[in-house]
């Protein structure tokens, strides 16, 4: 019954809805860590969308790099420097129970969706047909976009240097 | 090449004056004076010894300058420019003389600016490539603005700013018109050209020229100045140091009239003729309004400044009458006003030097202690209100006679300006030199006497023997 309804379209819309709701929660949340977790949910939902759109490589990257690396960076920052404690007075208030419930609901929806996809052969088939394979992406990356990759590395270097400069401790006795 | 040499020499001498002043105090003015006299002589010899007559424009130099736009460094002379350049030389020397005592701070840089302005003005009168013309047009503004802004009176920055913005904004319209004409030339002949003589040969439709003409007209009307864009002038003249006012009133305003003649009327005769009623109306308003405003002023220099507006109105009216008599009148008025307003401003400077005020209410009864000064003041005021026998009368008479043949009503209203000029002339002279003596002042020194008497003599000579100027045809 559930599987009948589960076409690629409907799954996509569901994931999209989850992403939107989760993003809304990110934006409106008051607790930093909660918001970050909602962000993870949103990213996961988007990853599902990617997957459904035939970009499994991108979906994987989304989960690994985005949700995995970047958000962890956030979490580290929040936890290490105690940023979570600083809440602006005007942040919207919400009940934590409702938050928990909502987060659970969204995560659950995503889980459900994933299982449906994995278990539904028809969907898998359709997806296979449409996929832009990671191989193609790789060829592109190291073919025409080779320079772009190089430049992206410099971009990361720039981010690194700037971040280092801002974050490094003050030199003792120095005005600058 | 001689003219180019003269202009470069002026700049060079200016720089020299600037630097040498640091070493030998007080040498800049001598240097400026000597250089001006020398170069004026060079110019005279050049003009006299030139083989071709200057009835028509004689192109002297024509060198390619900016190839991207086919812009040339091209200068030419004709009688009109010769006359105006001669006036420039005269007033330049007067300027140095009136600054003799007045400018003590940063004298070196001052004379640099003065000489640079003069170089720019000469450039304006000789340039025939329109880009070059515009170039000089702006270049002469810069040192002039500096003179106002650095050595001016209490509100100098405001005045300099106003002066600069008015002229600059209006000249941008001219620039657009120049570019448009240049590209129209490209459209017609397939070659971009900013050369005046090329443009003269160009046949342009009236629908186009009326806009182009307007672009030029705006710039020149501001410079002239004509009501309602005159409002920079009183401030600039009032706040400028004496030499600045002399140069402004004496020569800079003439560049506006020169532009009207050379570029508006000769380049776009039809469009100008069509525009003549409006221009003449503006001119008449300038005459009457200027005279009326001059009467209301309390400030000596401001009064003279407004009288300049009135006088230059005569020039514009005469030019837009399209009548040869009026045209001659316009040119004589230009010269005459150049001399007489320069004289009045010098007078203002001399008074300012003595009593440190330009306010008429602070003056009065100076005739008692300074009779020579009073006599000259009266003579110059007389020139300003068109006393026959002095140059201004010839100018106004020719202008009005000419205008009357074409536009009687305008001439009659403009003649009311004569009454107005008598009124402000009387106010000017009487409240400064007559009445009870408010304080004693020194009479003219020898240098000042030289300034006043030379100016007066020139006014008188032109007034009694105008053929000096009238013998020129000015390309009519």
């Amino acid at each position, binding site marked *: 019954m559930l599987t009948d309804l589960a076409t690629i379209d409907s799954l996509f819309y569901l994931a999209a809805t989850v992403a939107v709701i989760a993003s809304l929660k990110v934006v409106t949340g008051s607790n930093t860590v909660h918001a970050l977790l909602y962000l993870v949910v949103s990213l996961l939902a988007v990853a599902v969308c990617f997957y459904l759109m035939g970009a499994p490589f991108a979906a994987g990257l989304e989960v690994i790099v985005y949700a995995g690396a970047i958000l962890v960076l956030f979490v580290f920052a929040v936890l290490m420097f105690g940023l979570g404690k600083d809440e602006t007075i005007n942040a919207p208030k919400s009940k934590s129970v409702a938050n928990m419930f909502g987060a659970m609901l969204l995560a659950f929806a995503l889980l459900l969706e994933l299982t449906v996809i994995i278990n539904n052969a028809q969907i898998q088939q359709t997806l296979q047909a449409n996929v832009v394979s990671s191989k193609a992406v790789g060829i592109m990356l190291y073919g025409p976009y080779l320079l772009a990759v190089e430049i992206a590395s410099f*971009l990361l270097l720039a981010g690194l240097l700037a971040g280092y400069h801002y974050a490094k401790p003050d030199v003792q006795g120095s005005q600058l | 090449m001689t003219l180019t040499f003269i202009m470069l020499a002026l700049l060079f001498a200016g720089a020299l004056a600037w630097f040498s002043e640091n070493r030998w105090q007080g040498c800049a003015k001598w240097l400026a004076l000597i250089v001006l006299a020398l170069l004026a002589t060079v110019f005279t010899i050049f003009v006299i010894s030139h083989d071709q007559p200057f009835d028509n424009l004689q192109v002297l130099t024509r060198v390619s300058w900016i190839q991207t736009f086919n812009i040339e460094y091209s200068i030419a002379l004709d009688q009109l420019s010769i006359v105006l350049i001669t006036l420039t030389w005269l007033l330049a020397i007067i300027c140095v003389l009136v600054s003799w005592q007045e400018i003590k701070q940063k004298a070196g840089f001052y004379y640099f600016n003065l000489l640079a302005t003069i170089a720019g003005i000469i450039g304006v009168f000789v340039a025939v490539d329109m880009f070059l013309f515009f170039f000089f047009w702006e270049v002469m503004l810069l040192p002039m603005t500096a003179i106002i802004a650095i050595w001016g009176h209490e509100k100098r920055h405001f005045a300099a700013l106003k002066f600069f913005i008015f002229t600059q904004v209006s000249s941008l319209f001219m620039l657009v018109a120049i570019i448009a004409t240049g590209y129209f030339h490209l459209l017609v002949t397939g070659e971009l050209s900013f050369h005046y003589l090329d443009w003269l040969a160009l046949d342009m439709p009236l629908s186009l020229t009326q806009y182009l003409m307007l672009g030029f007209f705006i710039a020149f009307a501001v410079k002239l100045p004509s009501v309602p864009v005159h409002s920079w002038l009183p401030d600039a003249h009032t706040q400028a140091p004496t030499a600045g006012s002399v140069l402004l009133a004496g020569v800079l305003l003439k560049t506006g009239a020169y532009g009207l003649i050379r570029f508006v009327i000769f380049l776009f005769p039809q469009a100008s003729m069509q525009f003549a009623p409006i221009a003449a109306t503006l001119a008449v308003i300038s005459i009457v309004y200027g005279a009326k405003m001059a009467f209301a002023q309390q400030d000596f220099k401001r009064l003279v400044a407004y009288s300049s507006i009135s006088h230059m109105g005569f020039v514009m009216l005469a030019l837009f009458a399209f009548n040869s008599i009026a045209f001659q009148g316009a040119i004589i008025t230009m010269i005459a006003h150049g001399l007489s307003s320069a004289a009045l401003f010098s007078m203002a400077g001399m008074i300012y030097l003595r009593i440190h005020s330009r306010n008429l209410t602070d003056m009065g009864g100076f005739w008692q202690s300074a009779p020579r000064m009073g006599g000259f003041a009266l003579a110059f005021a007389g020139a300003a209100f068109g006393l026959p026998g002095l140059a201004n009368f010839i100018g106004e008479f020719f202008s009005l006679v000419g205008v009357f043949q074409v536009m009687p009503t305008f001439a009659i209203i403009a003649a009311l300006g004569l009454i107005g000029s008598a009124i402000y002339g009387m106010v000017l002279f009487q409240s400064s030199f007559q009445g009870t003596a408010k304080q004693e002042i020194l009479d003219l020194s020898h240098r000042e006497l030289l300034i006043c008497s030379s100016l007066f003599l020139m006014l008188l000579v032109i007034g009694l023997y105008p053929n000096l100027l009238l013998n020129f045809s000015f390309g009519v």
Partner: protein
Amino acid sequence: MLTTAHSQASLNIEIISVILPQLIIAFGIALALLLVAWKRSQRTIALFTGAVMLIALVANVSLLTIQPTAVTQLLKVDSYSAFAFSLVLISALVSLHMSHQFLKAHIEVHDEYYLLLMLLVLGAGILVTSNHFASLFLGFELLSISLVGLVGYHRESNFSVESGFKYLILSATASSFMLLGIAFIYSVTGNMSFDANVPNEIYHQQDLRLFFEMGILLFISGIAFKLSIAPFHFWTPDVYQGAPTPVTLLMATISKVAMFVVLVKCVVAQNYLLYDNVQLLLMILAVASMLMGNILALKQQNLKRLIGYSSIAHMGYLLIVVIVLSGESLSFTWQSVLFYLSAYVVANLSIFMVMAAIQSQCSSKVGQLLQYKEELLLSDLRGLFWRIPSHALLVILAVLSLAGIPLTMGFIGKFYILSQATIAHAWWLIVTLVIGSGIGLAYYLPIIFTLFEKEDCTELQANKRPIIEHFLVYSFIIIGLLLGIFPDVVSQFIVSNPM
């Protein structure tokens, strides 16, 4: 299954030589990292950076007359981009000199500063040569991120965090918008190269066209943000003020040049102007910039803010060229843009050079260290002319150039713009330009007047200045005058090549 036929990029010697300057910079960055590992010295790294840039500049000279050459599908080098990159490199060199003056007094070694500077230059180098949205985006980001690092570089400054944050967040937002725009464009056209033909069907499909136009709009607003074109200009004065002076210079010159060149490239290649809406959009932006920039700059006392506002207006003027662009006069358009940009760059370099000199001179010494003078007010220029005429002369020339007065390059630049606009009969734009210039004079001239005011402080003395500064000042005076009087010297480098 549609796959675009990407020609396999072959990075042969010829192509490498074409992007040699960029490569030199990139290589220089890598080497600099090694250098840091070997020896941390202010002097060494500064000299090294300077050398890298000089070599890149030399390498770039030969490219000035090059035929358009594609380097993979991402980059395309032509004479225009080479010219623009030369401008970038020159400004970077001047900025380097200023930065060195600014940093050398400190004990701490600021390798990252120089690295970021090189990264910035690299980003600009990529931008000016980019021929693809991807490279555009990367260059854009490289520029932005390096700038974010540099803007807040002076960490002791009160404004460090503020300006850094402002620039980071706004620039990130702007780039997001731009990316969204690119995504929309891409989703309609299916190709991200500038050379791609925009399919004809989008004229007929309403929804697609809507997305396409919105894409262009978002894309342009992203670029407009970087160019600080009104109404996306809000960050400009604040960040200009907060950033260290050499960095402000970078923002005023490099980022403007690079962004504008890429904007023109993109608009030219993709023929966006075929859409009336785009033209209207650009027109609104241009008019708003010309007016708002000039009006906001009035009565401004802080010099850097003033320059910031004036840059808004200048970009507005320059935008006119893009609006009236037409296929026939493409090379003329390029000439106008590049000439105006070089005039703009020279003027900004001149002003900032003097500003930096004043700042370093007016800084007070606290112990061994210099307390850098942060706020540079108009009144700090007072009487400069009588104390150091050369510096003041440079400022005068620069200000006149910005105001577009003859004798200076700025005037020729304005002449180009007016020529373009006149040919295209864009009278309303011309009127706006004239009004804008008029308002502009009301704040440019007071700067000059201030220079001439009677001196009251004698802090800055001519003889104390380093020789290289004098050399730079005099050479810029000469350059400014020479190029203002003989603009052909510059324009002959901006040769037209068949695209």
